[in-house]
């Protein structure tokens, strides 16, 4: 009961007119920053951090600045899905998985359904996560510490295995794409030994590594557009989407078909978000994989499955709240955004630690209350803006395509302030177009370049610590995950054998 009363007190403080106004402004700003390709929640929070000093001077307390930052964070997490669905460019790494099915839905003229599912799944994910956070925060903080390097690498392996085993694409090409993405993520400096490596053709631009957004924008912004142009054969519009109240209500009612993905994303997202060094991006990709793996309609994934939109969106919002937990109770940020948020919170008086909830209740509960309020404001604002986002899709193809190219180029430059990355993005886009034409799946490569910087150090640190690969099979948490991953990798090879055996038996019985 104490928790409930504290939470109600916190929500009442977050609902004060000034705090509510800040939440609304923060959500709207975050939504548009998150929707802009190249800019994600980390940019929004970092850029707006200085504004909290102004808010602090006006409000005279630490609560209002923190509510504003939380609102920007939530807004940006919602916004990432918008460009994924409407333009086919992931606004941030957390929204990559949303593109896999959100984009096909938009191309089928069902962008309103995808955007509504993304908004409602995000709301559900964040709400479930908030409740879990409120109820189990201190206990879960210690569980997260049981996840060491072997467990995290096993989770990464499972994510890759899902694509190889259940992707439905050519297995050899899928494995190539995964390894290709992982290899690209290793370009630059080896973070363990500090040695430069893989500076292709000795071009110094590679020394800072190949950034995720360069690959993602190149593949989804450029390659996908070129592929669509080649397939559309002069068709003038990208999709004939209906923007009306009736279509909005229809989109809302369709969301009931996405409950499975939403639940998987919410639960898994929160759990993965808790893990130090994981965060919302791996959570959304894994949730997509698990939703696909457990779906009866897994063949529809990648072609416009509603669960394929709901699972990653629920997961990235759920993980965003989950990632607050190690940040607040252990002082370990789970992602770049939470690192910036932690900096903001420390400026305004937070002292992270296991006793945070007992020693600083006046700070913590209004902040948690603001999570609930920001989430509620974010879903309302997001739904209100859906017609505006849909309007983008009604543009003629010959206007939308150059705008997507402009946003891709400008977004890449804005993210890294480097023309080398812009050139690389364009070349990756043109190369990706040819790979797409030759049926090399691009999604696993994007997944791999995101997870590579987590997978490599966890594998090497495990081998340094335990000096054997068998540790992945013998540890109580890592073992079952690794076995599941091995099973999935072998599944495409085993499946024809099983079919042959069944066929043989059926033949022997004379069926």
């Amino acid at each position: 009961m104490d928790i409930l009363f504290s939470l109600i007190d916190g929500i009442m403080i977050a609902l004060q007119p000034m705090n509510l106004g800040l939440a609304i402004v923060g959500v709207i700003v975050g939504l548009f920053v998150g929707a802009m390709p190249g800019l994600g929640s980390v940019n929004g929070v970092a850029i707006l951090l200085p504004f909290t000093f102004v808010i602090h001077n006006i409000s005279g307390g630490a609560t209002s600045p923190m509510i504003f930052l939380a609102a920007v964070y939530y807004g940006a997490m919602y916004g990432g899905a918008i460009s994924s669905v409407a333009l086919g460019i992931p606004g941030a790494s957390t929204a990559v998985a949303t593109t896999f099915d959100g984009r096909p839905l938009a191309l089928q003229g069902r962008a309103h359904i995808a955007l509504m599912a993304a908004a409602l799944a995000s709301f559900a994910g964040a709400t479930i996560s908030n409740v879990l956070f409120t109820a189990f925060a201190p206990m879960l903080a210690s569980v997260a510490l049981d996840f060491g390097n072997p467990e995290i690498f096993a989770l990464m392996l499972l994510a890759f295995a899902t694509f190889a085993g259940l992707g439905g694409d050519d297995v050899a090409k899928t494995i190539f794409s995964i390894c290709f993405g992982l290899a690209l993520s290793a370009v630059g400096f080896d973070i363990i030994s500090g040695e430069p490596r893989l500076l292709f053709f000795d071009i110094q631009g590679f020394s800072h590594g190949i950034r995720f957004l360069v690959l993602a924008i190149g593949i989804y912004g450029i390659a996908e557009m070129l592929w669509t142009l080649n397939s559309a054969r002069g068709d003038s519009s990208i999709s004939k989407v209906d923007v009306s109240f009736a279509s909005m209500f229809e989109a809302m009612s369709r969301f009931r078909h996405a409950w499975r993905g939403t639940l998987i994303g919410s639960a898994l997202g929160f759990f993965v978000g808790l893990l130090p060094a994981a965060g919302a991006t791996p959570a959304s990709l894994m949730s997509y994989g698990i939703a696909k793996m457990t779906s009866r309609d897994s063949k529809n994934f990648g072609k416009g499955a509603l669960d394929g939109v709901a699972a990653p969106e629920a997961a990235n919002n759920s993980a965003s709240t989950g990632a607050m937990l190690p940040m607040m109770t252990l002082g370990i940020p789970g992602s770049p955004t939470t690192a910036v948020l932690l900096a903001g919170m420390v400026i305004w008086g937070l002292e992270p630690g296991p006793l945070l909830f007992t020693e600083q209740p006046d700070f913590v509960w209004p902040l948690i209350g603001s999570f609930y309020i920001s989430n509620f404001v974010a879903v309302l604002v997001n739904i209100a803006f859906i017609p505006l986002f849909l309007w983008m899709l009604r543009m003629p193809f010959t206007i939308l395509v150059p705008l997507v190219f402009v946003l891709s180029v400008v977004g890449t430059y804005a993210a890294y302030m480097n023309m080398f990355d812009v050139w690389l993005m364009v070349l990756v886009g043109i190369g990706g177009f040819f790979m797409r034409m030759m049926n090399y799946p691009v999604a696993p490569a994007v997944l791999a370049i995101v997870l590579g910087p987590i997978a490599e150090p966890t594998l090497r640190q495990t081998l340094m610590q335990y000096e054997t690969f068998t540790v992945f099979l013998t540890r109580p948490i890592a073992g079952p995950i690794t076995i599941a991953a091995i099973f999935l990798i072998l599944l495409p090879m085993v499946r024809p054998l099983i079919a042959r055996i069944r066929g043989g038996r059926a033949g022997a019985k004379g069926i």
Partner: protein
Amino acid sequence: MRRGEIITAFILGIFSVYLMWKSGEPPAWNPDVPRFANIGYDESGTPGSGFWPFWLGVMMLASCIWTGVSWALKRTPASVSEEPLLDAHGWKMLITVGGGLLGFTGLIHILGAYGAILVFLLYYIRFLGKHAWVKTISISVSVPVVCFFFFDIAMRIVLPKGYLEPLFIPLYDIFL
């Protein structure tokens, strides 16, 4: 498609070998270390800097060989398809759109981001899209203006200006 399949697998196979070769490179400050000394464990039991990319390269090469075998045995749809990789429409699209995109990126070095956006949108909307001049000019001018106020003014992210930099100094004086 059949020819494209094996050519792509061959090119990607060459890239895999190059990746393995680069992974084994000794660090610049210690050229006496033999190549490929870093792809296994060092004397302290630590996997070297080339360990991860080298073995990924091996797996990539194995995947390309697998694709090649499937091609030879005609097991995949692409390996039995006699359709061309790109037809005349595809090549025209790639040259006009892909070429325009490369030109746009190159123009950023000369005209800056905003000037290049203006020229690229004029080219695409008017000459590829065949829209009316009024629509073309209104979009081509408004997009760089909105981008300028969003990136340079609101977000304080300064995009390149190229040789047009002096034109922006009065705007900075007014808005910043």
